[in-house]
């Protein structure tokens, strides 16, 4: 049996989790302190995912950029692909928290959404 150690990023506690596995089959997970930790360990072993946060250009807003995030975590391998799509975007103001900037970004199945409401310059 092999062993993989990882640190949970689900919350700032940073629990040390140990996964005992045989090849790609998980035998035992220990060291987590909540359901999120267990889920994180499983997902991190099968398919590591991260939420991507960055900014998008905004036309005629009270601020020049609006912060955005992928609504759910996306495959870690896809992060730079997501960033490349985002770098070409420009939004019209006003924007509101939760507005979908682009659905299913870079084929991840996850929507990119605004994380701040910004008014149009009056």
């Amino acid at each position, binding site marked *: 049996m092999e062993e993989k150690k*990882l*640190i*949970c*990023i*689900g*919350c*700032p*506690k*940073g629990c*040390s989790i140990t996964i005992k596995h045989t090849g790609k089959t998980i035998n035992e997970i220990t060291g987590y302190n909540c359901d999120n930790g267990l889920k994180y360990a499983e997902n991190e072993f099968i398919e590591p995912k*991260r*939420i*991507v*946060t*960055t*900014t998008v*250009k905004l036309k005629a807003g009270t*601020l*020049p*950029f609006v*912060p955005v*995030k992928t609504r759910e975590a996306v495959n*870690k391998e896809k*992060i*730079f692909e997501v*960033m490349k799509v985002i770098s070409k975007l420009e939004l019209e103001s006003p924007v509101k*928290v939760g507005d979908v900037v682009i659905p299913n970004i870079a084929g991840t199945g996850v929507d990119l959404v605004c*994380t*701040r*409401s910004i008014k149009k310059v009056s």
Partner: protein
Amino acid sequence: MKKLAYDLVVIGGGPAGLASALEARRNGVKKILICERAPYLGGILNQCIHNGFGLSYFKEELTGPEYAERFITEVEKSDIDVKLGTMVLEITEDKQIIAVNRKDGMFAVDTKAAILAMGCRERTRGAITIPGERPAGIMTAGAAQNYVNLEGYIPGKEVVILGSGDIGLIMARRLTLEGVNVKGVLEVMPYSTGLVRNRVQCLDDFGIPLLLSHTITEIHGKDRVEGVTIAKVDERIQPIAGTEQYVSCDTLLLSVGLIPENELTNKLGCEMDQVTKGPVVNEKRITNIPWVFAAGNVLHVHDLVDNVTQEAEIAGKAAAALITGKMNKEEKIVAVTHDKNIGYVVPQHFDALNNQDKVVKFFLRVKNPDEDIKLVVKDNANKELLSLKKSIVEPGTMITFNLPRQFVTKDTSSIDISIAREQAE
């Protein structure tokens, strides 16, 4: 000079100011004014566009701007007054707040109470004295975060980060995503000072090296940074001769700690804690001046905004009790002391006979990382009131615990908090 009158003035419109104002409003304070220096509410959360906020307070994961917007929306819906672009210049002994902005000019506000919520600022190059040239391209990690996330400017192409504080780690990832070559993060201590999750998802994810027990001994470049000399340090934090290495870069970011912003507090003459660099407070977050409260990073630097919000609500509720005449007079002060393994504890004292809250909430930081420790709270009769076990403690992660009121009697004059490695049984 224009004169205004409010029941409560909150200085600072960041997470601490917003939460304390809202809590005071919920507890019956009618006329509240928030003075904010920036042109918008939300404070530093506006540039913290990454996720990881709100897990304990909202039980969901939010980005900084989303976390801020929940409170801003509440404030906008309420009758709390807000003055933006407003700099508070002085808090006077006779309960007056002197402030200035473009619209009102200089003005005075008579108030019944004030909540200090000014937050903190970053330590700069001057605070850590790195020898070498004085070129452009050296800035704090927070300044770079402002440029990248709010203004849309990239500070350089090749970056070295000194200090493993959270903002430095967050910026290592942020700049990497924007195509910048982040060459590494140097930490003078033998452990990372930022949150463990940030080490994992900001450095490990992108293969950015973290060099512990390393520092910068020289900055090179006349007009613009051209490189830095890095070196290993010994256990006394002194550079070891012969370990120097040259690293080329055009930008140096500093993430070397935060200091509570207490100019107003000092000028007013509040008693200060030399370790936290914030005012000394009781469990209601009242300073030694009975109408002045403090909460958030102005009091002590937090690592989680969720804790700031909780603390601000304590201050807001207590300010409301004072203003509405429901505050019990402090009758019996219990001093809080701690052993040398603990860096600091907030609050520094509390009222033994106050029965308005069932528990006293404590925030503390350890001095050094340790494992399998037991935290023990004893009273002046050496009776153990409380103990809790922790598998891992580190200075970068604040510890909080609640002391139930029923454990404190009229004979309690002080409590002592200690931390020791658990003995194997």
